[in-house]
């Protein structure tokens, strides 16, 4: 069947990674937009959270779909990682990478797995936090812990690297590579990951340094 042939082919698996990556990227946009309310005040953030959770069905359907997308991205990613390792592990006595700035592309599986570790901790810390404590207090209490916030910032650095190769790679996989857009795409795959780093990392920094003590 064409679909089976498609998803089992090398390019098909790349396209699955690119498509799920795009969906996860779009989720990050919504998440960053919502969390940015923290910078306004605890009341605004609490209002946003209450409003969102006053529609449990939206949350349930959205997070189930998100989980499915995430599992596919991780599953296919790990499968490709092991498949590629079987082909190419330790091929040469002397090996050297010619491409400059290959750090992001060379570390994709590791930055991805680190972000996964972060996700597990993040979800247990916030999504399954005690229901009787308002989320706006949980955020402040958790991230006021210096090492907890430091771990968050480290994870966001890994995410920034992951996205900087991921965004460009996604477009390349979709076949978007043209001299006219080359500079634009290069800038975009630097600016957008940094934008996420500023918002998400900014929140952790805000509480870690005590700037948000009276938020």
């Amino acid at each position: 069947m064409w679909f089976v042939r498609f998803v089992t082919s090398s390019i098909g698996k790349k396209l699955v990674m690119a498509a799920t990556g795009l969906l996860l990227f779009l989720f990050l946009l919504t998440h960053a937009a919502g969390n940015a309310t923290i910078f306004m005040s605890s009341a605004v953030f609490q209002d946003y959270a209450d409003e969102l959770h006053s529609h449990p069905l939206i949350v349930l359907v959205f997070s189930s779909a998100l989980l499915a997308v995430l599992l596919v991205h991780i599953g296919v990613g790990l499968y490709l990682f092991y498949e590629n390792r079987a082909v190419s592990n330790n091929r040469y006595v002397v090996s050297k990478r010619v491409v400059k700035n290959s750090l992001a592309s060379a570390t994709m599986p590791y930055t991805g797995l680190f972000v996964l570790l972060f996700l597990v901790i993040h979800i247990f810390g916030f999504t399954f936090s005690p229901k009787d404590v308002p989320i706006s207090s949980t955020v402040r209490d958790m991230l006021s812990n210096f090492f907890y916030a430091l771990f968050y910032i480290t994870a966001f650095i890994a995410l920034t690297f992951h996205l900087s190769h991921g965004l460009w790679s996604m477009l390349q996989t979709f076949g978007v590579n043209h001299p006219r857009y080359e500079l634009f795409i290069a800038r975009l795959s630097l600016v957008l990951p940094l934008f996420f780093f500023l918002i998400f990392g900014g929140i952790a920094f805000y509480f870690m340094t005590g700037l948000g003590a009276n938020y």
Partner: protein
Amino acid sequence: MSSSINLTLKIWRQPHSDALGSLETYTLDHISTDMSFLEMLDVLNEKLTKEGKDPVAFDHDCREGICGMCGAIVDGVAHGPEKEVTLCQLHMRHFKSGDTLVIEPFRSRAFPIKKDLLIDRSALDRIIQSGGYVSVNTGGTPDGNSIPIPAKQAELAMDAAACIGCGACVASCPNGAAMLFTSAKISQLALLPQGQVEGKERALAMVAQMDSEGFGNCTNARECEAVCPKGISIRNIARLNREYLTAVLSEG
């Protein structure tokens, strides 16, 4: 003015496909800097033959950078440190006296080593055989201008057609993928009206063959493009991805 250099070579020696190989060290003195890398290996082999030893087996044919036969990994880089040259067009003036060079064969799961630096690249030939051609019923010579092709399009097709199939892209890919090769062979035809007729079947057949040969999966690491002696761009890989996606969604 020509000068000469002294080198220490560490070369991968492997008697046959199933034997275990290892790096052997050789010293070579008074190598003219005007020699090509393969001529330097010729000098070594002459020396080994005179000593009654087995010469180093390596691939070579035209020695002018157009046939795609030669190639080895020199100090971790396919075709050596110079950009856009094959091993036969790399000259010894790019090395210094006293250098130690590690020379290894192109490696891939799909490229079995036959002997020393000699490898079997027929996996690439089988990718071409699976669809890298245009089927035509030959008749009289067609008029040159019967199918007008924009000059830019023709140039792009020629750029892709510059691929000599040496396998440096596969050897340098962190994942051992053959995407740059396959994409060049698909692009040279997909860019021209004569090739577009069989475009979908070609994309499906060549990708299926590429996957079945045991090459890895592309992760857009760009190493292939950086070592390609013909400067084939990964823009061709983007084109292959587009060709394959359209083909898989609409063929049959």
